[in-house]
Every structure is written in C-alpha cells, then in structure tokens.
C-alpha cells in the first residue's frame, strides 16, 4: 500500500521535473527579447487607454516612445508635461514642454439663442441625427445637442447643460484626449491651448453662412463682420468663410475683439469680470 503511494509520488515528481526542464529549454530558446524600458515607460503612463496620443492604448504608446529617435510630436495628453518629462528622463531623450490644451465647444446656440425649427424625435445620438438632416435649428453647422461628446469622454469631463442644450467642459477633468472631437459629427469641439492662468479667448461659432442668414438662425452667431479683425493689434484673428477664428498662438488675450463683437460670439474664459465703463469712470473720480 505504502509502496503504491511512493511510486506515484516518484512518478509524478519525475514527470514534473521533466516537463519543467522542457518548459525551461523552450522558454530560453524562443525567448521574446523585449526592451525592458517599454514596461518602465508604460508604468509611468496614466493607463487610461484613451487613445488621445494617437496610439491604441498606453502600451502601444510606450513602444512607440521607446522606438522613436526623438520625442517630438509624442505627447500623452492625460499625463501632460510632468509625465512626459519622466518618460523623457527614463529614455534619456529631450522633450520640449508642450502647452496644456483643453476642449472648447465652439457653439453658443443655446435654446434661447437659437430657435428650433423642427422637432427631433429620433434616437438620442448626434451621429444618427446628423445622418438624417442638418439639425433642428436654422443653423446647419452648430451643436446638435444629443450629447455624443459627453458619452465619448472617458474622463467624465463633459456634461450636457439641460438649460442651454449645449455641452459644458469641466476643464479640471479635461485631458484634451480628443475623443469628443472625434465623436462630434459637426466638428464643433476644438482642442485649444489652455492659456496662461487658464485664460483664453475663442470664437464660439462655426457657422459659415452669410451674416444675415447666420444671425437669423442664431442670435449669438459670428456674422463675419470683420470688427474683431480690425481691432486686433496682433493679427491673431482671421475671417474665412464668413466665420472668425482666433489663432491661439498669436492671441495675447487683450480682449479687444470680445469687446468689439456685436453678437457676443467671442467667448472669454476665466478672466476677471470686466466692470462696466461708467463704473470705472466713477471710481477714478
């Protein structure tokens, strides 16, 4: 009886050792040589797998970073400059500091500003709606308000404001991964430089119709009147296809354009509240 147990143990042990030896030899022979730095870089990355860098997930980005000769053009929007500095240090490469960016919604066509011309009653999806028609307002360029961007955001940074019907970006959470830009069928969302102290100016309209048509559809539309172009001291504003665009690399945040805009299409973010002119005069007096 006891000998049966011993033989069993001996056989199984011998078999185990044999197979372990085979496995060891195979593992040595067909070893996949992988740069250990890939694992290190991946560990540094945030692990959100959002695709914001253009790679299919964080590991793919790590592989690309390790293979790349320079890190120019390689940027993890979620980790931002601190993470990229660590990556560069680990790989012994140089990296220039990139300006942090944030998603901005270039449409002010709220329910108040933009009267509805039809009732959309279909699936709550901008993609479906855009496939059916130009939208439920007179503006065929603006936000459709079905919230595809909010669904696409992996960081819960976008929510739809039920009062305006427009998406609101939470800039603390936004990592500028670009998923919302890809999800928006109208191309309303843009990634812009966050700006010093998070202050920035942008034209919150992409309506390419002529001024009169655009204004009729939406009271906050850019009408291409060129006033902003004229007042800008830095040549940062351009009007193309009846719509103004502020180049954030040239803009020095003087806010003259926002003051000049007759429809309020130029939006200023995070600036101190501007006092009305009369009040300033009184103060000085």
């Amino acid at each position: 009886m006891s000998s049966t147990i011993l033989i069993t143990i001996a056989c199984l042990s011998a078999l185990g050792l044999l197979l372990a030896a085979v496995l060891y030899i195979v593992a040595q022979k067909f070893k996949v040589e992988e740069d250990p730095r890939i694992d290190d870089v991946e560990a540094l990355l945030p692990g959100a797998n959002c695709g914001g860098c253009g790679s299919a997930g964080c590991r793919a980005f790590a592989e690309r970073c390790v293979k790349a000769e320079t890190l120019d053009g390689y940027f993890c929007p979620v980790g931002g400059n601190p993470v990229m500095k660590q990556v560069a240090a680990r790989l012994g490469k140089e990296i220039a500091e990139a300006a942090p960016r944030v998603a901005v919604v270039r449409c002010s066509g709220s329910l108040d500003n933009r009267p509805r011309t039809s009732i959309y009653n279909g699936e709550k999806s901008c993609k479906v709606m855009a496939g059916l028609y130009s939208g439920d307002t007179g503006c065929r360029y603006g936000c459709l308000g079905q919230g595809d961007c909010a669904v696409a955001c992996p960081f819960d940074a976008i929510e739809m404001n039920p009062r305006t019907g427009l998406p609101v970006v939470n800039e603390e959470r936004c990592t500028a991964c670009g998923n919302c830009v890809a999800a928006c069928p109208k191309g309303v969302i843009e990634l812009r430089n966050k700006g010093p102290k998070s202050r920035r100016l942008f034209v919150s309209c992409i309506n390419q119709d002529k001024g009169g048509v655009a204004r009729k559809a939406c009271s906050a539309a850019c009408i291409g009147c060129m006033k902003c172009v004229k007042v800008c001291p830095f040549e940062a504003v351009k009007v193309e296809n009846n719509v103004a665009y502020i180049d954030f690399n040239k803009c020095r945040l003087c806010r003259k354009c926002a003051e000049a805009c007759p429809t309020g299409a130029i939006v200023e973010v995070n600036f101190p509240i501007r006092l009305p002119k009369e009040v300033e005069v009184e103060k000085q007096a």
Partner: protein
Amino acid sequence: MKKTFALGGVHPHDHKISAGSAIETFPVLDRVYISMSQHLGAPAEPIVAKGDRVKVGQLIAKPSGFMSACIHSSVSGTVASIEPYADLAGNLVKTIIIDVDGDEWEEGIDRTDTVVREITATKEEILKRIADSGIVGLGGASFPTHIKLTPPPGKKADYLLINGAECEPYLTSDHRIMLEMPEQILIGARLMMKALGVTRCLFGVEENKPDAIAALRQFKASYPEIEVVSLKKKYPQGGEKQLIDALIGRRVPAMGLPIDAGAVVQNCGTALAVYEAVQKNKPLFEGVVTVTGDCTEQQRNFRLRVGTPLDKMLDAVGGLPDKAMKLISGGPMMGKAVANIKAASVKSTSALLVLTEEQTLRKLQTQCIRCGKCVQVCPMGLEPYLLNKLAKASRMEDLERERVQDCIECGCCLYTCPAQLPLLDNIRVGKAQVIKILRSRPKK
C-alpha cells in the same frame, strides 16, 4: 397561391387614399430650383450661366463622371442664379434657379399623346438616348439607368423585371401611370429589353391594384414577351432583391447585385421615362407625384416639373393642415423627413406625405426582450437587434461579419419592434461606417 418573396416582410395598412384621383398637370410656377444632385454619384456640372435663356427640355448640366447623369431644364425662362440651396434635409446642394417666362419647349420633343409603338432605335441608340435624357431609377435610389442597363463584362442578364409593386403605403403615383399609360410603360419595357438583349420580362404588380393589372393585361396580345404577374401584398416587395425572389425565385448573393442573379430590375416609372426619351425625344424633367395625407384637404396625383418647391405642392391640396406634424418626401416606410419646406422636388420625388402627431411621434422606448420579431421580418435575413447593439458599440468588424452592408434600410425591424427601439437609426450609421471601411480597403 400568389407569388411573393420568401423571407420576412411586414403588412402595413396601405392607405392608398389618392388612388382614385387622376393625374393632373401641375401649373408651372414662377421660379424653379433644379438641384445638381438628383442621382446617385457625382453631382452634375452646370453648363449654363446666370442670365442665360433656357427652354423646356434643354440640357443645363452635364455628368461630371462615370456615375452621374444629365440634367435638363424643366421650364423655359432665365437662369436667375447658380448657388447652394438647401435640400429637404437642410444640406446645401448646388442648384440652378430659373425664373420662368412662358412655356417654350425645345424643338424636337413630341408633345402629342399619340403612342409611338414601332421601335426603330438600335441597342446603342437606346442606351445613348437614355443617358442623354438624364434618366435615373425612379424607384427611389436614383441610380443612373444607362449604367444599370449596361451589365459589367462577364455578367449577363436573362430577365428584365419591371417593378410595379408600389409596396409603400400612401403612394399611388406608379399606380396611376400604370392605369393611365399602360401601353407606354410596356413599350418602355420593350426598349429596355432590347438595350439589355434579354427575351424575357416579368412585370410585378401587387394585388391591391387590380385595375392596373387589368389595364396592363389588355395589351397581352401585342406584347406577349412581357408577363404581368399579380403579387401578394407585402412590404418591401418593391426592393430589388425581394422582387427578384418574388418573380423568378432567385436569391441575390450576399454583397451581390441583382445582375449576379441574372436579373435587372427597373421601376415602372423609369420604363415610362425611357419610352418618352426614346420614342418621344423628351428628356426626364417631369414626373408623377402623389401629394397625400389623412389630414390634408385633398389627396391628388400631379404631373410635376422637377424643381417645384414642396410648399407649393402643399398649397395645391389645400395648404399645410393645422394637425400636420411631419412631412415626408416619399412613402412613410423609406421616405425622408422634410426639414426644409422650401426645398424643391427632384427627379425621383414620388410623393409628399403629411402625417399627424399620433402617426409620427415615437413612443417610449423600453428594453429589448429578445422576442426575435425583427429577425422574423427582416427581408435580408439579418439580425437587427444584434446589429443595433453592435452599431451602438461601434464594433465594426462584428458588424461586417453580421453583414450589415446587406441591410436595405426598409425599416421593417423598426416597424415591428414592440420595444420601440430605434433599430434602423443605429444600423444605418453602422452600415455607413462599415461601407466606408470596405471602400478604403485595397482591392484584391
């Protein structure tokens, strides 16, 4: 038992309330808006300029590529401008706007009612005439007819099938032309048979139009090669693949075209246009349109020039009713909702339908209960509930494997879903993306 297609299908109430009203000629308006995108494929290129005088039937735009079609003026007058104009979905399309002045027709167009029976044109002449007349499929897809009648090398048709099913509820324009101009349609069919080089032609008409079937069958002796078949009423019988199954019992292979089953399907309206183009020298610039709805004052069928604004069509049936909630260009199953009432009619406009609130507003969505009704009614044998889920999750490879590209967008799944799920809405988005991916792949 009457013939019909084997797989799926639904039976909506047919509401053919305008069937009894004869075709009336719609008055020519002061201004028409002729779109350059009235066919599948590349938009046509205008060959007239602002200020030019044009006559009825004059060529005003030529095709800009292989898959494109000629466009002719539907009125006589002066070109007011060539500019982007919003179509019925609100999207801008290049449009020639013409201010009407009199009604002077291009010379050579036979405007009499005499039926020209004798076919003198050769095969090549017929095809050229069809292409030069800008004829496109009037069943809905607006596929240029001359391309469809020229099968790709190596493929041969042995049947021409004429689609007189008109399976969409409300529409009666095909019904009226079959009733009022049966012989002309049969001659048109004969012309297309000659162009294709086929000897057999089947003409499918649904059984709810017995008068049209009788009107066509009275010419049986003169046109023995064309057999008029009475089909069981079932939607979407007018779909190409469904009609092929119903009439000759063949199945078009997945991802294939009707020609792969040896058949070419043409709408009866197209047959009439071919007759007029070849025998009467008249290009395609007008068509029969049903203006109908349960809430409109009247329901009528008009012979309408291309480019007539939709609101003018509504005025002719007593204006937009107060109860109206939704306008549809085409039938209620596959037609497009009209977002812009100022949009103009195009070659393939078959109807303008006015629906009330209770007919159109979607009901509350609930959960999919896996009842399988959508699978039962899908005429292409797909699984709409699954495609819906995959499309929502953007799983393109799975969608392709489940053959989303075979979906004909007939809407049977959405019509039958007890949970009111917007199946087709999502499937359509997925299908468009999958087709884009397929096209971007390098050809083997």
